[in-house]
């Protein structure tokens, strides 16, 4: 099925860092089952660095692969470094994603940023942040394809 790059297939079939961290310092959850993808990222932070990271994802191949890739990219990174990682950078690290998936299943960096936000919110005594419901990719696909 070469709609996906080999790297995507590798991360889909051998996802890195799947699971939960029961005593996570930050959890970011993003998505909406109605649209197809939910990503949940757990981080363990030590000395301003992401010491451990795990994910759970409900979604398509791209959603799984981007989740896996983002965890690999940020492990050991400082929070500032992690915050700079964009969805586009994740897609690029996977040798690209099919156009149709670029905007819908490419949210893993956002989920990671939420986990960092959550960590900061808890640390600041403001408690956990809420899960973010996204469905901005719910659209008439055909409109996307307009020759316009």
């Amino acid at each position: 099925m070469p709609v996906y790059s080999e790297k995507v297939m590798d991360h889909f079939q051998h996802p890195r860092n799947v699971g939960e961290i029961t005593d996570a310092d930050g959890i970011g959850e993003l998505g909406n089952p109605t649209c197809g993808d939910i990503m949940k990222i757990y981080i363990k932070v030590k000395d301003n660095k992401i010491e451990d990271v795990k994910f759970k994802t409900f979604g398509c191949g791209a959603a799984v692969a981007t989740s896996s890739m983002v965890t690999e990219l940020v492990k050991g990174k400082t929070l500032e470094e992690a915050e700079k990682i964009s969805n586009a950078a994740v897609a690029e690290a996977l040798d690209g994603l099919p156009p149709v998936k670029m905007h819908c299943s490419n949210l893993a960096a956002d989920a990671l940023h939420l986990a960092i936000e959550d960590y900061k919110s808890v640390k600041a005594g403001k408690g956990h942040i809420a899960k973010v419901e996204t469905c901005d990719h719910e659209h008439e696909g055909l409109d996307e394809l307009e020759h316009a």
Partner: protein
Amino acid sequence: MKTINFDHFAATKMRPEVKSAMEPFFIEEYGNAQSIHNLGDAPREALDKSRVQAASLFNCASSEVIFTSSGSESNNLAIKGAAFARMAQGKHIIVSGIEHFSVLNAVKSLTKLGFEFTALPVDKDGFVNPDDVKNAMRKDTILVSVTHASNEIGTIQNIKAISEIVHGFGNGAYMHTDANTSCGFIETDVKELGVDMLSAAPHRFYGPKGAGLFYLKKGTRIMPLIDGGVQEFGRRAGTENVAAIAGAGVACELAKNELNKRREHLLPIQNHIIDSVLSSIDEVYLNGSRTNRLPNNINFVIKYIEGESILMWLNNSGIMVASGSACTSKILKSSHVLTAIGVDAALAQGSLLISLGEDNTMEDAKYFTEQLPPIVQKLREMSPLYEEAKSGK
């Protein structure tokens, strides 16, 4: 690794007999069927023969068979053709809510030209209630189109009852059925169904891509979708795809002869898969009618996981399936059919659509029912929804 096609609604492998019937028309008999010199003879005879073969499958006259290029074209010809021919009588069309997009989008695009349509609800098994048709009929209703059997959930409609209501209403409304999924697997006798128009797609029953079938009852008025020359009785212009039409005819003949054999082959495989999956995996549901169902369709919802992922893991095991999930659809929306039968949008993401064909064996079914549970398990372990459900959140 063996490839098991459990996605025959996407593609069936052409029969060797079909290919043989097509072969002469690629190079040797490359003439145009409309030519009155010798090069036109064999192509013209091939069209005639194929028309007879299709007519025999539909139980109609061969002059009532029109060849198109696809099931979608046949559906569009029915909907737009009848709408434009009869707009003086009215501009109201009735369809079911679970029609294929080639029907639904055709009626939607007609609304831009002032037509209106009613989309009928279906019950939880996907049945249109004939009473709903009766209630929806208006004086200005010119056309009713209900799919013969759903290409997602396999439910077979009572077209005969619906046709009777439509024709009994007495305003001359036409009845069309989209038989693109049913044809070749259950009876499509147009007299029995009582329809004025019927669409079918030979590529769905071991025929070639590039030929669609359209039954147009004598006396039924339509405007062509493709205007131009006199091909297909002036109903569909364009140089005929002789090879594909020749192949389509053979596919029709095979279908007619093998209908019982096909059902007998498919039913045990279908039953095994349904029974085994429902018993071996928890929180899995069958969509569509258990009894009034195509013998080659199975549609499950597997909770907490998403269709494309299931599909990719099965693909890895050599098993080709489809899904009604948003991620597998190019319009990024989950199946409108599942929505219509009341499946929650989130659940629809876990839809698994299996369509069987003559190349499938009971071994394939067993291999599949062994492969599926660990895949489901693996994906559920990765799913935040499953985690929440288990933790009782």
